[in-house]
């Protein structure tokens, strides 16, 4: 586990997270997460379902407030920021939501044009050109006039990516950008992400569990744990460092194996105990009919 920044990243970190904790009721979703993202990084947050990746991302964009800890984006503490300040900061980053989150009442082109219309003083003709360029980049030429309900899930995601990139933001957040895409489109989106960092010099924070993408685009990776390590960083480093880690939970995740330390799977013995109502059963929230002894 290395925590030193890669050579390309000089100076101040773009995002600095320190001791981030978040509870939902009694459940601890994030438990002391700390990391830094440097300019030009493609920073990947990976981990199993329910490990808190998306929650972490929501904290970074300021739509969720942490229980404890600090988050600095562009050097400014966002956890204590007023809505007005947060608004200004948000003009400087793009976000791709897991579901795309295109506005259903607008066409695809209008969705992509929205940030331009709202935040720039470009005239309509120029906006139209920019929108066409962005749609072309994500392979959606000719689909601009359609409503989001008329295009496929993968197309929605690409349209959402075009919208996130409309203002050429220096920082892009991306929640599961390739989930639900076919292999070719996955490669297209990955390439687009790489081009962002390499050509425009943008910084990208990606949440994903697609291992191909992780190693194709990631320059720095953190992995969040589940189960006993819920909400903790169990591995961080460059792709090579992550691959070389002996930690069985990490290896299981990378190689996609069903049996192992990672995930909710806690072994056959415990499974039997849970089914039969053993002492361990109460730790797991099974339906009462399954977990009660009688």
């Amino acid at each position, binding site marked *: 586990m290395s925590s030193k920044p890669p050579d390309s990243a000089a100076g101040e970190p773009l995002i600095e997270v320190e001791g981030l904790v978040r509870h939902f009721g009694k459940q601890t979703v994030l438990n002391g997460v700390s990391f830094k993202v440097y300019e030009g990084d493609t920073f990947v947050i990976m981990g199993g379902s329910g490990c808190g990746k998306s929650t972490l991302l929501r904290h970074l*964009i300021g*739509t969720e407030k942490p229980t404890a800890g600090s988050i600095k984006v562009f050097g400014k503490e966002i956890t204590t920021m007023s809505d007005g300040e947060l*608004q*200004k900061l*948000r*003009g400087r980053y793009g*976000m791709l*939501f*897991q*579901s795309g*989150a*295109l*506005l*259903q009442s607008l066409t695809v082109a209008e969705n992509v044009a*929205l*940030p331009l219309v*709202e*935040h720039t003083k470009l005239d309509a003709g120029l906006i139209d050109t920019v929108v066409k360029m962005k749609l072309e980049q994500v392979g959606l030429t000719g689909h601009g006039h359609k409503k989001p309900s008329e295009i496929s899930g993968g197309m929605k995601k690409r349209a959402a990516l075009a*919208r996130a990139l409309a203002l050429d933001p220096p920082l892009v957040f991306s929640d599961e950008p390739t989930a639900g895409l076919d292999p070719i489109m996955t490669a297209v989106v990955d390439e687009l992400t790489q081009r962002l960092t390499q050509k425009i010099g943008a910084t990208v924070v990606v949440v994903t569990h697609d291992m191909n993408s992780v190693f194709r685009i990631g320059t720095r990776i953190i992995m969040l744990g589940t189960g006993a390590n819920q909400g903790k960083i169990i591995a961080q480093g460059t792709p090579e460092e992550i691959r070389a880690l002996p930690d069985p939970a990490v290896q299981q995740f990378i190689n996609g194996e069903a049996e192992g330390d990672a995930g909710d799977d806690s072994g056959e013995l415990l499974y039997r105990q849970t089914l039969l109502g053993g002492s361990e059963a109460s730790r797991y929230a099974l339906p009462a009919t399954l977990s009660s002894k009688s």
Partner: protein
Amino acid sequence: MITAFRQYFALCGDLLYWLVVAPFRGRPWRMGHTFAQIVRIGVHAVPMSALTALTIGVVLAMQSAAQLAKLGATMYVPGLVSSSLVRELAPLITAVIVIGRSGSAVTAELGTMKVSEEIEALEVMAIPPMSWLIVPRFLAMVIMMPLLAVFGIYVGLAGGWLISHFSLHMDTAYYINHALQYVELRDVGIGMLKSGVFGVLIITIACSIGLNVSGGAEGVGLATTRSVVVSLLAVFIANAALTALFFF
């Protein structure tokens, strides 16, 4: 329950800011959105509220004629129809129709936007949902409710005329004269005030419940039902309070 109230008053506070303060800080009302909502919330509600008002006018005339005939006083039918329409029924019936078709639609739309992350997306794009979604709907509702009520009064009076003219054989001029005789300008004003208040209640309740939906499609369904029930209750209670305040 307490959370719902807190969410409601938080929304009202926000709304007040975006209605009154924000326009002076370079965040004007979005007139294009407002007109679109006027069409959706108000104009599209015209046929239904007209039909309802017509039946109410007809029923009012029939019921009062049946009772007044016993006293030989059917000449009071026009006055009874007009005063009950202007003071009570037109604003109330319009509100019920608007709750059913527009309030529920607003809750369902906002709720769906909430669960599909669209509202969050707006926030992250630094487009305040208040200014983009809520203020236009509020303005549209507050403008259109009194207009729909006025329209309802006219159509209801026409319904009363149908019975008075064809069944009670009243002269049209006589009907109009008597109908106007029992209504003062103050009554019309209070009727409009009522429908304005109903509009505010309906749209704030619909928006507050819609924006706080959780739990996917099922949550949207539950929220829409709740929005309708709560709005109806609020409107009927407000109506009783306003009637007590101005007419009692």
